[in-house]
């Protein structure tokens, strides 16, 4: 049995017939052709698959595609504004907030959610906010710095 879904990914509208068990992560990667969203585990622990569903972060490996029917999904590919990187992308680059890059798309989108709900987090709040995303390369230190920087830049841009 297949069911129809309409999902808008990064502003582009898709219509597919999918198996109800299809995970949103696989939908985005296999049917959307957007491979920036990574699958790093099978127990919803690593957070590499984090995307935004209607502006709110979600682990796309534990969301069914059918649950996102009618939603607007933003992946790492849709975060920049044209050629202008999002402040979080810039700050991850500036602060060496990534090494192998595999956790990075999910980490950046989790940080996006963090700053959406807390525009000026303390380091402890950043660490707490990102504890659902695993990184094996950076020891998290430069990720914390990157998020702190991005928060400051976004606050300055808002004024």
């Amino acid at each position, binding site marked *: 049995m297949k069911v129809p879904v309409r999902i808008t990914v990064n502003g582009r509208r898709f219509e597919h017939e999918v198996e109800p068990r299809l995970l949103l992560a696989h939908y985005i990667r296999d049917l959307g052709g957007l491979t920036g969203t990574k699958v790093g585990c099978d127990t919803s622990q690593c957070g590499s698959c984090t995307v935004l569903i209607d502006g709110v972060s979600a682990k796309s490996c534990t969301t069914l595609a059918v649950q996102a029917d009618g939603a607007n999904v933003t992946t790492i590919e849709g975060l920049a504004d044209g050629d202008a990187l999002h402040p979080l992308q810039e700050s991850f680059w500036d602060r*060496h907030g990534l090494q192998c*890059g*595999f956790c990075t798309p999910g980490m950046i989108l989790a940080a996006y959610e963090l700053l959406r709900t807390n525009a000026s987090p303390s380091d402890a709040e950043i660490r707490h906010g990102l504890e659902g995303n695993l990184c*094996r390369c*950076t020891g*998290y230190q430069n990720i914390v710095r990157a998020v702190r920087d991005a928060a400051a830049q976004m606050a300055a841009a808002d004024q």
Partner: protein
Amino acid sequence: MSSRIFGSRIRRREDPRLITGSAVYTGDIELPGMVHAAMLRCGHAHARITRIATEQAEAAPGVVAVYTGVDTDGVLQPMPCAWLLPDAELKIAPYPCIAKDVVRYTGDVVAVVVAESAHEAYDALDLIEVDYEPLPAVIDPEEAARAGAPELHAKDINGDDISGNQAFHWTVAGGGDVELAFAEAEADGVVIKERILQQRLIPNAMETRGAVAQYNRATGELTLWNTTQNPHILRFLCSVVTGVPEDKLRVIAPEVGGGFGSKIAAYPADFVTVFCAMRLGRPVKWIESRSENYQATTHGRDHVQDVELAATKDGRITGLRCTVYAGMGAYLSTAAPGIPTILHGLMLSGCYTIPALKEDVYGVYTNGVPVEAYRGAGRPEATFILERLVDMLANRLGMDPADVRIKNFIPKFDDGHEVVTTLNYDSGDYPGALSKLLEHTGYRALRERQRAGPSNGKYMGLGLTSYVEICGLGPSQVAGAIGFQGGLWESAIVRFHPTGKVHVFIGASPHGQGEETTFAQIVASEIGVDVADVKIFHGDTDSTPMGWGTYGSRTTAVGGAALALAVRKIRDKAKVVAAHLLEASVEDMDYEDGKFFVKGSPDRAKTIQDVALMANVAWTLPEGVEAGLEATTFYDPPNFVFPYGAHLAVVEVDARTGHVELTGYTALDDCGPQINPTIVEGQVHGGVVQGVGQALWEGAAYDESGQLVTGSMLDYALPRADQLPDLDVISTVTPSPHHPLGVKGVGEAGTIASTAAVYNAVMDALRPLGVTRVDMPLTPERVWRAIQEAQGS
């Protein structure tokens, strides 16, 4: 080195593709007509296969083929072990790509399904019927070596008996009579004894392993995309196992999402994927699930160590004696025998003058996942022994741990120092490193604060590590002598295009460490071009020269040296061409920052770009000079490099709950001149946290039947952002005297140092409570129980 670019904190050049989701990892590769493979893993730690039925799976929707060991037997050669440790009675057990008769760990492949989609392949796995006759299993390496333990293998690949599960017995001994040293210490000194369990760790690169194989039946050419740290070695091993000649085999390591040693080995599943592609004539993709990664991708450590230190009553070390049972898992992985021996035993004297030393290492087959290099690979296990024993010696004698270290350090040296294990360290100032660390952290004041006693049930502890590591592997002659089945040199090709842009083709294969940036910095600093004008090619065996892989902190140290020397060759040729263009003699030419000029007349100059253009169009070149501006270098290091440092961990242990909080951490590392300090610091951060993970949280656990019970990220405790303090990272700079750039390597330093530092800190905190040892990881439960036991309740 002329330019400021060497040592500058430029942003990484690999990042734009990584932060925008446009990087291509193995799992992102799509090919026309591609099908998907799923491996059926046995799920038993030890069992005899009595029947396999695949008919139902073959008939399942989307299934293209199902293969078992019957199909691959004789077609795929057994998995090779590539580190043939000499003088160690090495017994290599047969390691088939697909198990046909007996399975020896839960990740053994027994069948593969190929289907039109990955979902269909995984669905069909459930339809394969396998009957097993379970056999007794053994996981603990010391237990496996005991008489009466379940035996995994009867014969090795040469038909010789394997007894007591012993894969090898390797010994290192050096200096004076170690038995005498201990006899003397027993009589009139101190002997410290300890049992250390270096628990099994699971590397957990965030990208799991995977392979895509494409075979062209018409040409006989095979392309294998793989999540490997060493594509050229994989090409060689793939050729051996699959029979595809090396010239028709292309291995590509695309973007690789971390490795930490777990992507060094060649794996059965890679070659099974190749087998499927060759049988079917269609591209085949296999991507490991995380559960599979836990049960089939190599683990690290797994040592049972009995260690003893002899010393005088005033704290001078006189001898070290160790017996180690090193779990190898069910089969010998590609480089496994060298890890607990060469990379461990030869570093056992560390930063100290140790007059007599002996270590016996027993490599033991167990029903666990094969054990391989894991960040640090042998050196963390050596550092831990020494640093723990030194702290215990300090406690016994009532000395400060820092003072015992200072008393036993090898004095500062800058051009070679032979240690008791016969290694010749290149340069180091261990007393200097520790003294800078103590001063920077206010160590003596922290001790004062500690003396004030616990506050609110929380006990403060300080833990030091002084370490030296062996990196930059290594001289190929030594590689041969120690049984490594390959060379350890690196090569680079540097090519200038007519517009002065540069292509670098390099054998090394970075996978997150940032060498696309640091290599470009080397080129820019050596010949004055802009970093943006240098493109680094790596990871494709068709376009890059031979390389021996990225592991052992060797890529910048060895590959970087090859690159620097290639650029220097270009500079030499460019000088000749520039002299010709300026109608000057070569002897009168000078070079600075990308310009060749006549001595004393800086205006009479040609830039490297001028020279690149003329060399490429070749309208006028000096007599006997070939067209083009290109150089190739093979750099075989004359010696290893020996980075070192000193770390301090500060913890607070809550005696009521056993909870350990790492409240502060300072790392001082000396990896020689730093090409990009931001990247160096990033390596230290990640390395330290992996080592902290071992001390406090991580550990592979098996049940009695040999089932891995920490088989997912839910059950295996990886470090998380909110468990860690901000790390303080500082450095000293001691160039390697034998290296063209003086650089040493820093990828593993943090991990080598931090486990012992954190462990020592926790034990330091627990001293007033009477606790002297707790097995790692130091979870709240274990710490709490140890406190209860020591308090007699």
